[in-house]
């Protein structure tokens, strides 16, 4: 079942690619939407059959490279199920949004279907090499999206930077994986076996080096300061759909790696160096928000708010390490908040990037000062951006608050100063979103001189259909968080318990 969910998009991708006759754009997008919708329905079925207190479920094992201790081992628990569902939702939204895409649609659809399988595969992988393969393939897929459908020459440069930078990160990750493999006896890459064996317990400097490699690899992907500078150009130059997937799903691979691999597999050394993660998290949160406030390009601004939001996640996982053994409730809150933040950021930032795509299509620029008074000609667009902005700045009633409140409340006991500093991030994001909203949407109408037809159309049906469900889900999670938290909480309690060993 799980394998079907993961590989269905790839199968459709292969079919679409190998179909001998030319396929019209509409059919391509239609097939793509249908595949994404079926996959979402399957994921919903997974969710419906999931027992929150049952640990790992839907497990499947098969031999792959038995001599090297590598196997095909997949399964989901409360940490990965929300991310699987998020992936399906976001890819469906992006597919609907792409109804307006006209450039090489067949290849575009195939690429995104491929990426969907890669992302779903990563979140269900329980083998380090399997995880690494998906981790790397996501870079390859996104490279082609940015280079092929991005903004011209600069797009290709940004794609190259993205590829090389994150590729170096994934190499560091591989080093860490090999370090884990060598320490275990018998040698294995299986995550559950490694978690049970805790091979690096008492290994001192060796364990620290492995954590360093893992930490750097994941921090590049997350991205955490100072490894974040690939993100703004990649986001700015990518097409809106690519940005939404990049921010919504790909960044989560880094933070998911922390809760799936780094924390449970290296508990002792994680506790020892938890403070470093707290500091990196708090710095990322404040630094990301400050740099975002200093931007004049709305897409770059949103990209930097991702650094801020992911900083909260790193802060929380670090705090869970410090609190080990003292306060069970606080570290459960912190880890639950971290996972909730991954889901929430995916929905909200995904929506924001799709909306900036709408903006670019109408006005051909991301410069904040080029626009004014858009709420007049485009009230629905303005309302959607305002809702997404308030959700992103953490207003209660949306998922961001549910995540951030748990993170702050859970982390304060671990490191009061760093957490108090990180809390100022929500004020900075409020300031930058309000300023952007005021300059672009309120006041007297002004459009950029380069806008194609001198007018600014409101949201079209595919755009609304793509964005509204994302914001609607953020609202539902914000108002009725229990269904989601019921799934996450047992798993985060388990992770917190593993770290406390």
């Amino acid at each position, binding site marked *: 079942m799980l394998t079907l969910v993961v590989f269905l998009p790839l199968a459709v991708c292969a079919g679409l690619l190998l179909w001998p006759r030319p396929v019209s754009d509409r059919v391509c997008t239609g097939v793509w939407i249908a595949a994404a919708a079926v996959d979402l329905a399957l994921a919903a079925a997974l969710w419906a059959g999931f027992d929150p207190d049952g640990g790992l479920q839907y497990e499947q094992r098969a031999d792959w490279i038995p001599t090297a201790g590598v196997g095909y081992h997949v399964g989901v628990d409360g940490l990965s199920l929300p991310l699987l569902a998020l992936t399906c939702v976001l890819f469906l939204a992006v597919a609907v949004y792409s109804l307006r895409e006209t450039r090489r649609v067949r290849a575009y659809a195939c690429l995104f279907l491929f990426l969907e399988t890669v992302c779903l595969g990563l979140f269900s992988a329980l083998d380090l090499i399997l995880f690494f393969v998906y981790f790397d393939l996501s870079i390859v897929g996104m490279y082609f999206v940015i280079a092929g459908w991005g903004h011209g020459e600069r797009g290709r440069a940004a794609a190259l930077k993205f590829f090389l930078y994150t590729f170096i990160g994934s190499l560091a990750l591989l080093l860490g994986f090999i370090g884990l493999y060598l320490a275990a006896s018998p040698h294995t890459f299986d995550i559950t076996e490694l978690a049970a064996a805790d091979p690096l317990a008492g290994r001192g400097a060796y364990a620290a080096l492995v954590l360093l490699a893992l930490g750097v690899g994941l921090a590049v992907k997350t991205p955490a300061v100072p490894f974040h500078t690939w993100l703004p150009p990649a986001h700015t130059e990518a097409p809106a759909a690519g940005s939404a997937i990049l921010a919504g799903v790909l960044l989560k691979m880094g933070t998911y790696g922390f809760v799936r691999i780094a924390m449970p597999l290296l508990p002792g050394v994680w506790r020892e160096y938890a403070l470093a993660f707290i500091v990196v998290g708090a710095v990322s949160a404040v630094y990301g928000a400050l740099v975002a406030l200093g931007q004049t390009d709305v897409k770059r601004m949103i990209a930097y708010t991702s650094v801020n939001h992911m900083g909260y996640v790193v802060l929380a996982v670090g705090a869970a390490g410090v609190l080990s053994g003292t306060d069970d409730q606080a570290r459960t809150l912190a880890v639950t908040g971290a996972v909730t933040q991954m889901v929430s950021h995916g929905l909200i930032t995904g929506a924001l990037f799709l909306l900036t795509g709408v903006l670019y299509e109408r006005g051909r620029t991301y410069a904040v000062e080029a626009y004014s008074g858009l709420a007049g000609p485009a009230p629905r667009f303005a309302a959607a951006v305002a809702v997404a902005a308030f959700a992103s700045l953490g207003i209660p009633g949306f998922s961001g608050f549910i995540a951030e409140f748990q993170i702050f409340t859970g982390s304060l006991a671990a490191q009061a100063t760093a957490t108090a500093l990180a809390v100022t991030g929500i004020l900075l994001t409020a300031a930058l979103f309000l300023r952007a909203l*005021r300059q672009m949407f309120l006041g007297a109408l002004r459009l950029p001189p380069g806008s194609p037809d001198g007018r600014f159309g409101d949201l079209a049906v595919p755009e609304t259909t793509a964005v509204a469900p994302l914001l609607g889900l953020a609202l539902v999670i914000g108002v009725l968080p229990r269904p989601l938290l019921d799934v996450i909480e047992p798993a985060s309690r388990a992770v917190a318990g593993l770290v406390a060993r």
Partner: protein
Amino acid sequence: MSALLWLLAAVPLTAGTALLLTGRRLDRPAPALGVAAAAATLGLAVASAVLRPEASAPLFAGIRAGLRVDGLSAVMTVVVAAVTLAVLVFSAGEKDRLSQGGRFHGLMLLFAGAMLITVTATTLPLLLMAWEVMGAASWALIGFWWRQPQRTRAADTAFLTTRTADLGLYLAAGAALAGGVTALDLDALAGARGPWVHLLTAGVVAAAFGKSAQLPFSFWLSRAMQAPSPVSALLHAATMAAAGAYLLLRLHALLEATAWGGPLVAWTGAATALLLGVAAAAQRDLKQLLAASTCSQIGFMVLAAGTGGVAAGTAQLTAHAAVKAGLFLAAGAWLYALGTKQLPALRGAARAWQWVGAAFTACALALAGLPPLSLWAAKDEVLAAAFAQSAALYATGLAAAAVSAVYSVKALWYVLRETPGDAWQGYDTEESGTRRVTPLMRPPLLVLAAAAVALGVLALPGVFSALRDAVGTPDEPSPSAWQLPLSAAVALSAAWLAWRIQGRGPGPRLLRPAAVRRWAAGWLGLEQAARTLAVRPVLALARATAVFDDRVVDGAVHRAARAALTAAGLARRSDDGGVDALVRAVARTARRLGRAARRPQTGLLHQYYAQAAVGFAVLTLLLLSLR
């Protein structure tokens, strides 16, 4: 029972959200729908005030979302719902100015619904959620006329200032958890352990000061005057600004858990009451005067909370709600009719619209603290609580009460004048007036004015002790026999004096010297200070960080990439010029040697013989020499 409480929260929130989501389609029936929802909410509020329901639901790990109506909440819910209904009826009378009624009424219902949850929440996260939603709604309402930049900028200022203070509540939640209050129950906060109780108290107090526009956050309320008048009425009387005072009254036990909590809160309240009262007396714009007076009057509630006068603060809050809502609606009616809120231009306004004038007069006299009206009664309860703590607090409060009389009478003096012949010159300076007051504006004004007068019953000992029992502080002090007459005398003489000075015109001089007047008229320079000390440095830091990020952090990445390219170039050169050159040199040498070896191969036998002979000779010599 618990369904009643969920309904009380859900009716305004869902009705508001529905009105917002329908876009422009429901603009026409929106006022009627809004009033209907507000009326239903009032019914639910009264029912829950009687039945005292309780409800809760799981929220986070070990933390629930709880709602309860106890004595304090019962008063608050009824006040909030009643003022909301009055304000929405008034707004229905102003619907041509408030076109896009769906958006307006939807936001107002959200605003009120959030306040209703705030005053009934029993756990910190739920309170914080409602608290922040209220802030967001205030942003959208203050900037309701979004085409005018000064209004949207004011909305930003209001939201960002209050959110700065709200960070305190986020920290307070963490501190409570760290201090052992694992369920984050409001009632249990005072029991937080160790140093955490200090952070907890500081966070709560900061958030309350911000929301209630106490010193040093007061300036946002001045900017918030860009909101439509009904918004101001609701925001000042029963939501936002009142919320901070409510929080401190609710958590008065926490203030006593530290040595500094109570005195800090009490003195800040007293100082705000006095200084912002002075600021009010210096205003020439009616809405600005009323806004400063809100800070001042809420200062009395904060003073009460800091001195344990919960019932006194509640009485002050209730009386102020009626008075201030009435005053703002009256000011709004004149603004609607005359297009101005400048006091000199409003001369004679009370005579031109006598119902409005009568309501304004009643409320202004109550605001002045004249007996036997509501705020006189309530303020004396507050001052009695202050006196029990310190005589200096009492004296400051009494001075603030005198200032209240001064600014109230100043406003009243203008509107009660004869209409001057050239009055029209001052009209329509801010918006285009309609020269009429619509019928729907009248009932809310009269109801509020009646309440402003009738709540004077709070001075009756029986009524006040019932209130004390209801909020659960039966031991609160009552004003002693000399305090009521003293405060009445102070208010009356201050009012008389102000009327006399004002009447001496032209250029009435209530405040001297001029520098003090300018300082007070500019709201004590608070916004300027905030801009200089906080906003500009942060923006400069943000720009500097952005440059740092591009040049240094990303620059390092680019330098690393360039270094890698340079290293690759070097490697290529060393490869071409080193290893490969060596290989070629070996090849060359081999070729040369080969060529040299080919030389002797001439094909001529005699030369071979000669070579062999030479070789033989050399070998022989070698052997001989080695021997």
